[in-house]
């Protein structure tokens, strides 16, 4: 059967629309993502001490990520499904390679140096894990049976633990939630979800023992930041001061005093939301959250329109993971979650997460723009 999009048949042609459609780009998603990226430049300029170099570097990365997104949007989703297991296996191997190399090197090792560029296998795992779980579950009837649950659970736990061992708590959390997202959308029974939550809560003391000292510090700091105001609690306290002093309307663009006077560390990376909140206030924060929700809603809509189980599970899980990203970062900056190294998606300074995120959106666009033609009923 010929592959055609529905909109090509019925929508009146417009030049830009036509071009975007030919590019397999989903317009609402594209517009939402571009708006967030533009907003990112606006905030980075202020948070990065108005350094144009910072902006140019980030713009180059974002441009590259958009190119990758467009390229992936062209791939037929059938190909993603076909290579899911292979890509997952490859990702795991690279992850092991990094771990083994880390044994010989010093301290944390997350990078694989390929000479011309450095590559972080854990980023690849963020996408290949939901692909793998979706592929595995889609082979069977839904909702998944206990045996399939067990195997899917293993597929999630192995990469999660490998990344947690690097140690990169933030990424392992995102990988786990992307896999768990697939299980959730596959119809994992509520009773089971409740049971797992109870068990996890029961496991907390054990988890405490497994955690590295610095990870424990972060949790303790989260529980009581005032205990160590100049050391580990400094981030959270300063971040709260910055956000709270922003008020309803904020201090205006470039008006952040906390990041300028060096009160707020990591103001361009993980804590950039604090600068945003200080400059644009509650009004800006709610608008930004609304923008994120629009993107997420569009993704969930794409998931409901997907035509096979694999695409559906993958699309919904990617949308869900994106939300987890937003929630964990903002939650940590406003002091309702412990500090884990998760950037504010598409806004924090840094290239790796932008590339992975937009790759995910590329897959979503591919799923949406490669649908087989179905007439209106």
């Amino acid at each position, binding site marked *: 059967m010929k592959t055609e999009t529905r909109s090509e048949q019925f929508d009146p042609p417009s030049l830009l629309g036509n071009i975007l459609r030919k590019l397999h780009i989903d317009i609402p998603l594209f517009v939402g993502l571009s708006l967030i990226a533009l907003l990112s430049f606006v905030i980075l300029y202020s948070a990065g001490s108005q350094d144009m170099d910072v902006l140019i570097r980030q713009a180059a990365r974002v441009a590259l990520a958009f190119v990758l997104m467009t390229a992936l949007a062209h791939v037929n989703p059938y190909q993603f499904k076909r290579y899911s297991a292979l890509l997952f296996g490859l990702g795991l191997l690279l992850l092991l390679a990094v771990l083994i190399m880390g044994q010989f090197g010093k301290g944390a090792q997350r990078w694989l140096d390929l000479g011309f560029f450095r590559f972080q296998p854990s980023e690849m795992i963020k996408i290949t894990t939901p692909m793998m779980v979706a592929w595995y579950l889609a082979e069977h009837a839904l909702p998944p049976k206990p045996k399939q649950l067990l195997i899917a659970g293993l597929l999630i736990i192995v990469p999660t633990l490998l990344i947690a061992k690097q140690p990169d708590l933030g990424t392992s959390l995102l990988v786990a939630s992307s896999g768990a997202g697939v299980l959730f959308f596959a119809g994992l029974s509520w009773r089971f979800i409740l049971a797992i939550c109870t068990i996890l809560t029961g496991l907390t003391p054990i988890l405490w023992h497994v955690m590295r000292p610095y990870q424990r510090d972060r949790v303790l700091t989260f529980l009581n930041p005032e205990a160590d105001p100049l050391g580990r609690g400094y981030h959270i306290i300063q971040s709260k*001061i910055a956000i709270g002093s922003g008020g309803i309307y904020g201090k205006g663009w470039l008006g952040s*005093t906390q990041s300028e006077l060096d009160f707020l560390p990591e103001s361009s990376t993980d804590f950039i939301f604090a600068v945003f909140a200080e400059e644009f206030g509650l009004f800006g924060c709610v608008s930004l959250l609304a923008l994120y*929700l629009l993107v997420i809603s569009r993704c969930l809509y794409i998931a409901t329109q997907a035509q096979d189980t694999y695409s559906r599970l993958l699309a*919904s899980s990617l949308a869900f993971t994106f939300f987890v990203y937003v929630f964990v970062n903002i939650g940590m900056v406003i002091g309702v979650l412990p500090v884990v190294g998760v950037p504010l998606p598409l806004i924090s300074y840094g290239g790796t997460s932008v590339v992975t995120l937009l790759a995910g959106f590329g897959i979503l666009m591919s799923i949406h723009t490669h649908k087989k033609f179905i007439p209106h009923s």
Partner: protein
Amino acid sequence: MSQIYTLKDKQVENRLFINRIIAALIIILLLTSGLIVRLVYLQIVGHSHYATLAKDNSIKIEPLVPTRGMVYDRKGRVLAENTQSFSLELIPEQIKDLDDTLSRLQKLLNISDEKIEQYQKQRKRQKRFASTPLLMGMSDEEIAKFAVVRPFFPGVDIQASLVRHYPYADLAAHVVGYVGRINEAEMKTLPIAEYRGSSHVGKIGIENTYENELHGKTGYAEIETNVQGRAINTVNSVPPVQGENLYLTLDMDLQKTAYDALGDFNGAVVAIEVKTGGVLVFASRPGFDPNPFVIGIANDAYQALQKSENQPLYNRALRGLYPPGSTMKPFIALAGLEYNAISAEHKIFCPGYYQLPNVSHRYRDWKKGGHGSVNMSDAITQSCDVYFYSLASTLGIDRMHNFLQRFGFGEKSGIDLTGEKAGLMPSREWKRKQRNQAWYPGETLITGIGQGFLQVTPLQLARATATLANKGKVVTPFLVRNAANPDSLEPEQETPQEDLALKPENINKIIAGMVNVIHDAHGTAKSIGKDINYQIAGKTGTAQVFTIKQDAKYNENDIDFKLRDHALFISFAPADDPKIAVAVVMENGGHGGSVAAPIAGQVIKQFLGDNNEN
């Protein structure tokens, strides 16, 4: 799977999936609402509280920078100190028209365009509201000139700070080194917290090797500030730990003697205290003034140093690689005795050349006509090449390599200075690996007289000489001595000495030969042995810079200065109870006995003379 079964399944799946999407949306909206509630709490309910914290009275953390440790020589003379210096600093955010201000300042104080450019570069890297220096090390006149017109320059001010100063300038520049502004590469590797507030870091020499000790630990003060960011009150402070003072084994009197004695020649002198390994002299000539590097050397001045033919920035004592020439002979002779390859009394006839069996090539002696029949002592005293060609041939390269390596040739001495070169002690394996070639017998011969592939640093020569003087107990050179007890001349810690377990009678025979070099009528360095009541043991060396043709005659006056032989000399004294070992290398100095030996003689006499007075 049947078509109908799948279809039924699909409907169930569809319903289930839509339910889950709705559930997910609800969860997402609930969690987002949670975030918004928290934001409302922070930004509306808590706004006035946080705004007060942020604006009216903020706690600012200011780094308290430690004072860098001083460096002293063995007699307590200052080698590196911190002096008050004044710099002109600008806060761009407080200046209305920066370009106009800069051009007015440029006219007023005669500032070069280069400095302005440098300032612009540095300014871009700074945080906002941070002051950036435009002019450092201001003279009294400049300060006075600016003070008069200061009201017309808002945002520009004179700041006092401590600047590193090296009173001995070029004399010990290579050892003490210098500090310079922290550059971008260093910014990435240095611990940020420790260097918050520090602008300089040790670049070379002791300043670099002992950066951690000299720098100290940065403290901090929590300062309450008002709306304008001015300090009102110090809430709490953790004082800095000042940098450690370092006491070197170096003796600046001896260092000056050696440095001056090198005169216009390029070269190096290293003197080591035999018993401890403490370095007394570490001179490399030409030197350079390290002081301009501290405030940022002008580009053309730096280029001039970089491109100078004499390479003043090059630490010859530590990194200079030279063929050791005949200074290698005592060690080769000792190898012969230790391996029982020859007895000290055995005589070899020297006709002025040496030939390998069945090869027509003649390996020449430096003395045309030869030395006649010589035993080991004669061969060392007169530096007979033929004797050592023959001995090298008997020993073979493998045994020579193994033996010389134990004296530290071909490896770093382990001195507490960064950037040391290991030199080269050739072997069969090395040649196969590096050049993919077999070892030739002729190469064994020239290794026996310290030529060929062999390359040593002056420091290695001094160390090997000290080890020989120490009767085979390996000496490890060091510069910084006991920081806890600066009054004692003891080293920081007694370095465990490896004992090469050489036979004392063998060493004594070698030393006897080396004593004759200075005190025998035929000695190659007899000029320095007069008027002293102790004996010096030594060995001269002349290292070829280029190879002369088989039949050509080496004539010093005919050839270009840069191609003249290097003059070398190793020595220790007193011969019966060695206290000091000295190695001298003079580039293009000609014959070792006539130019290099007197320098070592001066250092030895001054050191032993001083010691006797005490």
